[in-house]
Every structure is written in C-alpha cells, then in structure tokens.
C-alpha cells in the first residue's frame, strides 16, 4: 500500500491523477481462513483491521453480500458522540471517541472527523433534569459535557428558534464539544484499505447463505461462491443479524426496523454544529457539501425494505421546521432508508452465542456509526482471545436473561 501524503497528491497531479493504485484487491476466496467476518460495513471492516493490526491475525476474510459499506454505514447521518448515561455504555462509546480522535492518522485516510460539537436540546423540566443527570454522569466518567441554558444554546446556534413562542420552547441543552460528524464512506474505505494492506481478503458480492455447524461448533460458512472454512466466525450484519442467527439456529433479542434520513439541496454554510431534539424529535447538521443532513425516528413495524414511510418523513420535517423556521422553504433532495437492528435496552450486543466459535456484534440500532472504531477494537480482541474484552463483557446476550440491561433509551434518544 502506498501511503497517502501531500507529496503524493502533487506527484499524481503531474500525471492528471490517472495512476492512483486501487485501494484494495478483489481476491478469490480461499478455502480456509482463521477468522471469517460476515458483513463488510464499518463494524466488520474495523474488526478485521484490528484483528490484523493489534492481534497479528491476518488470515481473515470479510464476506459482504453487496459492496463494502453499502449497508447502514453508507446510510447514516454520521453523528459521533460519547455522552451515554451508564458506565458500561460510556466506557464503550468513549473508547470509540478516543480512537476517532487519531483515526485519520492511524488509517492514513482522511475520515473528515470534525469535532463541531453536539447539542441535545431540552424542552421540558424533565428533559432538563435528565440532561443534568446525564452530563454529571458523563463528567464522572471523564467525558466532556456541559449543561447550557436557552441563552447558551442561542449563542451557539443563532438560527435556532429559542423564543418563548415555540410550541415546545427550548429550555437548554447538553453540549458535548468533542462530539461531531465524520465522512461515513471514508470510514469504511479507510478501514478496508488498511485491512487489505495487511493481508485481509475483502470478498464483495459474496452472500453467506448458511453455516457449517457440527457438534455445536462452527466450522465455516456456505456462500453463493462456495463453502469457506473457519473455526471463528464473527457476524456483523446490522439489520440482517436476525436472519443470520436463524440460519445458525437461535434467536436474538432484536427487531429490524427501517430508519430513514434525508438531505436538502446544498446551502451556503449556516449551521456549524449538530442539533438534536428528543422531544420535538428530529436532528440536523450541515455537511461539508452544504446539504442539511436530517433524520428522526424509525418506522415502528419490523421491515427489511431499505426505505421508509412518508408519514415518518413528514413528522421529521415538521420537527425540523419547528426548531428552525428559517429552513421552512429549503427543498429536500434525496431520502433513503437503512435497516437498523434495535435492541430492547437500546444498547448493542457484542457476544459469544450458543454456537461455539460463533460471535455476534449487532444491536447497534439507530446509533452505531459513532462506535465503529471502538466496537471493531473490542470485538477483534474478543475474537482473537475467544473471551469477551472487558469493555465488551457487559454487552453479552446473557443480559436479556439475567436482567442486567444497559438501558440507554434516554441517551440514545432520537434515532440516529
């Protein structure tokens, strides 16, 4: 792999940028690997990268039925933050945040991580109490956070309607300055390129159709390109996790729902932070291209069609216009959906399964983009050592029988 650098950019300019090497190989599947990762989204690719980099396990295949990062990783609204309430979740998301902060250098790939801050608005007394509690909990965990009043919010976002005339007046917000956004595709591509350069095989257009299981242990996978063997299999398939679990003969505490987002026509810079409201139920940021990136809730029914319903779009835009009357005549350009794997306690699953050698990393639901580096890091350790990484341990499937849930409904808030 040739390193990217400013010098390289100048050099390639001489040949009109026609001689850049491909970012990764397109290998033929081998018969056998040490580890198979099912799902080539951000989480799967990051897992493969850390397996190779941290644990020296390079005989790894990432099996992706479509193209790399074409699932939720390419469909999300890229909010990155770590202000979760409970210690377990805070540890996981802050672990991820620390990796984000050095990610572009680590991968030699510009993931355009922009720490422009995230506001979570409060519109009721109860919202404000919850915000105070969460910010205090965050600070005890060494995570940055401030409680702002309405004036403090208005100072950061002058175009937000903080007047008393709003139907749900803004009373304040939590503010995490280190939070922000990143370029979704670049995250997938950066991990893919770096993993490939260490020998990981990225197998696109390859769909896992079943598992080879003998005496309660996994021996490999069936795919549309033949069988591939491995004694360790990590499934990282987001909305399709339940489908894979069914192939392996067990159920997960998950339901798959469509979650949509939309972007507007490009505008001149107008919003330089991320504004989220659980109460009015919508959130918005502005991309570097200038489009407003907007999202809100899931469709309430189980669905695998990667699109959402019109009513949800309407509710989303009502919320945005309620908060930002100035956006009322902005035209929307595109709308799409992804299938999110929601867990009953709004926390993920990073876990061994009833099948030996088979692990699942899923349940990220509406908010797993921010966790890609941390999740990949701890899942790789779990696969390499065949034992849960300490940060991953509380996220075992067992918690749904023991009752030790990590209830992050408040901090997960508006679906994103």
């Amino acid at each position, binding site marked *: 792999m040739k390193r990217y650098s400013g010098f390289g950019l100048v050099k390639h300019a001489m040949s009109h940028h026609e001689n850049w090497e491909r970012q990764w190989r397109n290998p033929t599947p081998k018969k056998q690997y040490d580890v198979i990762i099912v799902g080539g989204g951000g989480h799967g690719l990051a897992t493969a990268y850390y397996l190779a980099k941290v644990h020296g396990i390079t005989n790894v295949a990432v099996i992706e039925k479509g193209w790399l990062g074409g699932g939720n990783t390419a469909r999300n609204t890229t909010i990155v933050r770590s202000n979760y309430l409970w210690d377990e979740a805070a540890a996981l998301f802050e672990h991820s945040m620390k990796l984000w902060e050095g990610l572009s250098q680590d991968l030699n790939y510009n993931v355009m991580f922009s720490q422009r801050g995230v506001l979570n608005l409060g519109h009721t007394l109860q919202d404000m109490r919850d915000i105070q509690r969460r910010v205090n909990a965050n600070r005890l965990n060494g995570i940055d956070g401030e409680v702002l009043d309405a004036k403090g919010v208005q100072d950061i976002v002058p175009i937000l309607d903080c007047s008393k005339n709003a139907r749900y007046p803004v009373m304040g917000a939590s503010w995490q300055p280190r939070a922000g956004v990143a370029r979704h595709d670049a995250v997938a591509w950066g991990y893919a390129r770096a993993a490939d350069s260490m020998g990981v095989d990225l197998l696109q257009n390859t769909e896992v159709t079943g598992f080879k299981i003998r005496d309660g242990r996994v021996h490999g996978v069936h795919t549309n390109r033949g069988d591939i063997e491995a004694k360790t299999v990590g499934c990282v398939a987001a909305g*399709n996790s*339940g*489908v894979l679990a069914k192939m392996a003969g067990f*159920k*997960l*505490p*998950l*339901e*798959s729902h469509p979650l949509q987002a939309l972007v507007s026509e490009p505008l001149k810079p107008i919003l330089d932070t991320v504004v989220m409201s659980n109460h009015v139920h919508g959130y918005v940021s502005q991309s570097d291209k200038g489009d407003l990136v907007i999202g809100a809730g899931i469709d*309430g*029914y*189980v*669905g*695998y*069609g*990667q*699109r959402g*319903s*019109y*009513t949800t779009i309407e509710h989303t835009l009502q919320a945005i216009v309620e908060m930002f009357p100035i956006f009322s005549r902005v035209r929307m350009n595109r709308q799409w959906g992804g299938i999110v794997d929601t867990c*009953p306690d709004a926390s993920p699953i990073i876990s061994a399964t009833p099948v030996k050698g088979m692990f699942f990393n899923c349940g990220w639901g509406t908010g797993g983009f921010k966790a890609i580096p941390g999740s990949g890091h701890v899942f790789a350790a779990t696969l390499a050592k065949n034992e849960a990484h300490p940060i991953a341990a509380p996220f075992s499937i067992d918690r*749904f*029988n*023991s*009752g030790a849930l990590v209830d992050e409904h408040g901090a997960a808030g508006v679906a994103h």
Partner: protein
Amino acid sequence: MFHIHCPYCDEYREEEEFHPRGQAHLARPATPDTTTDDEWGGYLFFRDNERGIHHELWVHSVGCRKFFNITRNTATYEIHETYKMGERPSVTAENLPDSQHQSGVQAATSGWQTVGARPESASLNQEEQV
C-alpha cells in the same frame, strides 16, 4: 403508506391511524412462579424478527382503539390478511408457496403502495394456541 383493513371497523384506513405493537401471539408464561430466567428472557425480549411472513400486533389507535393482528411480508411489505384478537392466521410461511414469502426480496412488487387484504373466508384456521 399502508392501507390497512381494521377487522373491527371493517374498513380500510390509512397507516397513520394505527400503531404497530410488535410480534403477535406471544403467550405470557402461564406459571410465573416456576418460570426460569431463560423463559422470561425469551418471552420479554427474544423475537422472530422474520424477514418474510410475520404475524404482528397492531392497534387502531385513533380509530376504534382495538388491538388486532396482521400477517405481513416484512421484505415486500405486502399485507396478506388482518384478523381479530384470539383468531389464528390463515396465511403462514408454511402454507404459502415458496415464491411468495421469499425472504431475500427487497422491492415491493406493487411499488410503494401496499394494500391490506381481507381474509378470503371469515372462518379462520382454528389452530392450537402456541
């Protein structure tokens, strides 16, 4: 947008009048005192999450406010039937020809609009409650 036939109102209404309430026919453990943690966990949290034929509970929340069931394909979004509480589905993954509940399918055959179907016959299958 779904167009859903409420079996109580006996009318088609728009999706906005309804709320989905998850998988149908979940039986609460009959003997709570002797139910194990695994059984409770299964009842409370573990779901079929089917990609294909799915039986689900809906409520006509701004209509008659009654709960009822829908058999729906979660990949194509086609609604096969709606039926009252206490009744059993007449359409199941087992009794549909393979092509009609293909779980890999991503696009609705009928585009964005899916129309709720009334059960062909009023006398629904009387299976055992599971």
